[in-house]
């Protein structure tokens, strides 16, 4: 395995070929905000929060997906990126109905954390107040579309890790919505194994345990990586 050396925000870093810029940044303590990315799931580069500037490249590149290259000079926190990240968070807040005060994930919400990080004290964009439903048909869990940011972690974890493919995305554009089965009530989908992985990886309070009330959801997305790594090791040893 060969190694590539590059510079991220002025810090030199050496990474194995194939590693992503996000991993390289974390290696040297540079924090790049993410939402759709989750260690253990395939990257989709959909939330655009981890976009970084690479010298000599006209386009911004997603750190979660871009492999390190020799001599790369990367900037992760320029004023332009700061402004774009804040706007992205504002877009997420205004396209849904995110009311922290009554949310199960209040205090343990990645969207809330990112909003604090990017300094979003108010939205410069108008709120859209969409009319979105809540699905409480599953006997253990609930899905509140008002809080969904369409990161598709639930879709990917159910497909790639649980192997059930209960979730998918229906419709398009502003009308996109996470759907269960063939757009059925969650509780009517036989494929669901009640494993709760989707609830665990959901960055907001969109997917929740019915037993939780305001501020009580403590999801632990990082546990997924433990599982995926353990499985990979299991496959390696005969």
């Amino acid at each position, binding site marked *: 395995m060969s190694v590539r050396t590059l510079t991220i925000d002025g810090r030199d870093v050496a990474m194995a070929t194939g590693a992503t810029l996000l991993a390289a940044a974390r290696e040297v303590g540079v924090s790049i905000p993410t939402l759709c990315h989750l260690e253990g799931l395939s990257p*989709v580069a*959909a*939330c*655009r929060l981890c976009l970084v500037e690479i010298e000599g490249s006209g386009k911004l590149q997603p750190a979660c997906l871009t492999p390190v290259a020799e001599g790369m000079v990367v900037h992760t926190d320029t004023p332009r990126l700061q402004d774009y990240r804040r706007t992205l968070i504002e877009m997420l807040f205004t396209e849904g109905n995110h009311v922290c005060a009554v949310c199960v994930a209040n205090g343990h919400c990645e969207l809330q954390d990112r909003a604090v990080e990017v300094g979003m004290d108010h939205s410069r964009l108008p709120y859209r107040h969409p009319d979105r439903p809540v699905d409480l048909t599953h006997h253990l869990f609930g899905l509140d579309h008002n809080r969904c940011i369409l990161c598709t972690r639930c879709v990917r974890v159910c497909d790639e890790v649980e192997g059930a493919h209960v979730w998918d995305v229906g419709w*398009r554009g*502003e*009308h*996109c919505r996470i759907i269960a089965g063939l757009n059925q009530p969650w509780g009517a989908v036989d494929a669901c194994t009640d494993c709760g992985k989707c609830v665990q990886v959901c960055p907001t309070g969109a997917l929740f345990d019915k037993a939780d009330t305001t501020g009580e959801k403590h999801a632990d997305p990082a546990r997924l990586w433990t599982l995926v790594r353990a499985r990979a090791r299991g496959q390696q040893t005969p």
Partner: protein
Amino acid sequence: MTTHSPPPSSVLRVRCCSSAGCLAGGAAELRQALTTAVARRELQERLAITGVGCLGPCSQGPLLAVDPDGALFAGVTAADADGLITALAHRLQAASSAEREAPLAWTPAAGEQVDTERPFFTRQRRIVLEHCGLIDPERIEAAIERGAYEQLRRAVQECTPAEVVETIRRSGLRGRGGAGYPTGLKWATVAKMPGERKVVVCNADEGDPGAFMDRSVLEGDPHRVLEGMAIAAYAVGADRGFIYIRAEYKLAIVNLRRAIEQARRRHLLGAGLFGSPFGFTVELRVGAGAYVCGEETALIHSIEGQRGTPRPRPPYPAEAGVWGLPTLINNVETFANVVPILREGADWFAAIGTEGSKGTKVFCLTGNVRRGGLVEVPMGTSLATIVAEMGEGCPDGAGIKAVQTGGPSGGCVPASLLDTSVDYESLKELGTIMGSGGMVVMDHSTDMVAIAAFFMAFCRDESCGKCVPCRAGTVQLHGLLQKHLGGDATAADLAQLEALCHMVVDTSLCGLGQSAPKPVLSTLRFFRDEYVARLRPQPTAAAAGR
């Protein structure tokens, strides 16, 4: 195998446009009425009624042409059929050659004979459309008579794949789908990719408002595209092809299906072509009404049966396309250029057009223009030549205000810059793009803010919703444009509109989002005063104080 002998001089032929535009105007009824009238007079042997592809000035349809002199008539209806056949019967019975060659003493009741000496026709150079409107797209014999599949045979039997790639590279052909990527380079990349199996895809998911170039080619000369794809497959080492076509193109789908079947039966597609080990099969994939599926990675997902959403590139399709195989994706018009390049040579093609943009480009002239329709002009022709001379300007003598090219990914060129030559670089400098060939003419009554809002609504509706800036940004941008249209916007809103445009361009995942703000940025650049004029007056200090 050609059993069809050339028609004797005493045979007349009526070519009826059977393209979707003329069909909408009643061309099918017209053709039926002509066939009936011919049968009634028992003239079938000497008077042929054939359907052909687009004849050009679509806005005046239904169109028909009478051979051998090629007289073109517009606005013909089924009620005119009897009169025409009577006139043609007279000519067939004429004793002297002078009578036979005299102009046809007939015009359609509500239509006219079209003067083919107008710039609309004389300024054209038809390479892609050379057989469109001349041959019957339903009969492979008609295409073969004009040399179809001969260049495929020659390539397979007489050239190495590398030689074919080199010919395309030297021709200077660039992608006609809009971005203008050098076709030869794309072919060379796929050809050099390792792997036993490769795929060739023809992107026929044409969806820009006012654009119907690819539809016209597929409807009028489907074998041209199939042959181009097969030559490309031979050059890059592919054995499988897909044509991804939008479901709305019903006639093109029918014509393509028939053409594929005809070519297969004659062993012009399939295994072991022309006695060589090379084989190539083509399948049709019909879209389900998503504009974004014209984006190549979304198109690949759709072919695979997945949800049609784009993914980040790299890897490019040349490396990992359909089912992860190296995949060559070109647009319909790009493939349609391959046969003439091989037939006439790379140097011939490279001599047409400008330094950086070779060959011709097909445009669909629509909007506030007197002579709309399908035109093919050499690259480097000025916009003014196309819209003012060929299109003869706006109806009712209104002045041209702007010309929109490139659809929702393009921009508006103001009348003052119509001297701009049509080539990839010049249009890019003006903040628009060549695009796939839609060209919408706008007169002075056009509200440019409303135009920007129209295209933004289009992109909002067609966003796949995968990435945040496109999904939510197009909604916010459309809201801001509505605010401007309603006269409620302030200077701060205008500043936000502009900033948000740049943000969506810079952060969106695929070409749709990255170019969605272009119509706004372009109108802001050339027609900013129209935005400013609509701003809500700021309250004065005195008024605020009260």
